[in-house]
C-alpha cells in the first residue's frame, strides 16, 4: 500500500517543503555585536536559527524572513535586508 493507512506518515517529510522561497527579507547577523544570548534561536517559529562554534547560522532553506529574530535581538546584531533573487 503506497498510502499510509489512516492518513498517517512518519516524520521527515516536512523538510520537503522549502519555505525559504517565501522570503522577501533575509536576516544577516553581525557577529561583532552578537552576544550569543540565544533569543533568536528560541524565538524562531521555523526552527531555522542555530548556533555552531560561536556563529549564529540561518537555515535559508526554511527561513521565511519574518524578522522576529531581528526584532527581538537585544544586541541589535540582526538586520533584515532585501534579498536579490
Amino acid at each position, binding site marked *: *500500500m503506497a*498510502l*499510509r*493507512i*489512516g*492518513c*498517517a*506518515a*512518519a*516524520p521527515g517529510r516536512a523538510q520537503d517543503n522549502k519555505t525559504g522561497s517565501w522570503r522577501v527579507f533575509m536576516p544577516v547577523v553581525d557577529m561583532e555585536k552578537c552576544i550569543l544570548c540565544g533569543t533568536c534561536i528560541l524565538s524562531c517559529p521555523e526552527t531555522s536559527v542555530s548556533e555552531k562554534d560561536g556563529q549564529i547560522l540561518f537555515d535559508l532553506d526554511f527561513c521565511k524572513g519574518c524578522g522576529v529574530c531581528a526584532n527581538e535581538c537585544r544586541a541589535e546584531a540582526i538586520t533584515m535586508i532585501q534579498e536579490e533573487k
Partner: protein
Amino acid sequence: MLQIMEGSHAVAEAAKLCRPEVVSAYPITPQTHIVERLAEMVADGELDAEYLCVDSELSALSVCIGSSAAGSRVYSATSSQGLMLMAEVVFNVAGMRQPIVMSIANRALGAPLSIWNDQQDSISLRDAGWFHLYGEDVQEMTDQHFIAYKAAEQHDVLLPGFVCFDGFILSHTYEPVDIPSQEEIDAFLPPYVPYNKLDAKAPISMGMYATPDYYMEFRYETDQALQRAGDAISAAGKEFGEMFGRDYSGHTESYRMDDADVAFVALGSICGTVKDAIDEMRADGIKAGLVKIRTFRPFPAAELAKALAGVPKVAVLEKNISLGSAMKGAVGPEVKDALTGTAIEVYSYVIGLGGRDIRKKDIRAIAALAEKGVGNMFYGLRTEVL
C-alpha cells in the same frame, strides 16, 4: 455453554471474552444493560479493562479512537440518538482505520422521540466506512462480536464494525444462548496487533489532513478495505463455524427459497417471525422464502443476486425510511441494483418503525401485496389517525 440470559448480557459476555483493554460508552436506552453489565464485570475484577464512564457518545467513541490508536483493543456500544451524536466520530474512525467494534442496539430516531426499535440509526450511517453485521437472534448477535473483531483487525482490513441487533426485541429478550469459554475465544481471536500505533519509540503522525491531491485516494483505499472486510468476515465466519458449529461464512442466509414465488429480504430479528410466517404460508400452498442479510456493509450484491435468481417478486422489509426516496426504504434500491439485468420485481415495505409490532399476518399480507405488484410503501399505517 448453553445458558439462558438476556440479550444485552450475552453481548456483554461476548465483549468481555474479546478482552478489550478499554471500554468507553455512554448509557442510552436500549443499550444500557450492556454497559451496566460491563461496568459490573470491571468492578468485580472479571474484566481487566479501563472502563471510562464518559460525558457523552461524542466522547465515548473519541476515547475509543485514542485508545485504539495507542494500540489497545477497544469496545463501545450505543443506540439511536447516541449514534447520531457520535456520527462525526463514526466517519472519522473509519478514515483513521481503527478496528473498533461497537454494538448497536437498534432504535428509532427522533423526532418524535421514540425509545423503541427500528433500524434507522445504523442504516443512516451506512456510508461511514464501517462494516455492518445484523443479528437475527441472541445467539447470532453474540457470535457476531467475535467475528467482527477478527475481521476488523486483519491488516488488509483495519476497519471498524457495527454489530447491530434490534433494541428491546433482542437486547431485552431472555433466551438460551451458547456462550463460548475464554479458552475457546482466545484460540479463535488472537491478541490485537496494531499496524500503526502511537509510540514514542517510533513516532508517526496519525490523522493528517489530505489535500485534493490525496483525498480521493484515501477514500478509494477505505472502500477497497471495506470490500476486503467482506472476505474477512466470511473467512472468520467459516472458521467460527468450524470451531463452534455455527457457520457464518455467508453474508446472507436463505430460508426455503427453493421454487419460491415471492422472496422476502430482511435484516435482524424480523427474520425469525418471517420464517414462522413462511412455514405457515408454505403449509397453505403459498411458495414464499426469505433471504436474510447478515452483512449489510459491504453490501453482498453478488451473493444476493445468486440467492434471489429466478424469483419473480422480492419484498424488502425495511425497518427504516429513506425520507424522500422513491422506494421509501434504503435497502430496496440496493437489492434492486444487485438484480439489474433480471426481470425480478423488487418492492420495499416500510414496516415496524418506532417499535410497531410485526406479526406473522403482516408478513402474509405483504406477500400478497408483492404478488399484486403493490409496494414501495408504508405497511400498516393507522390511517384513522392521519
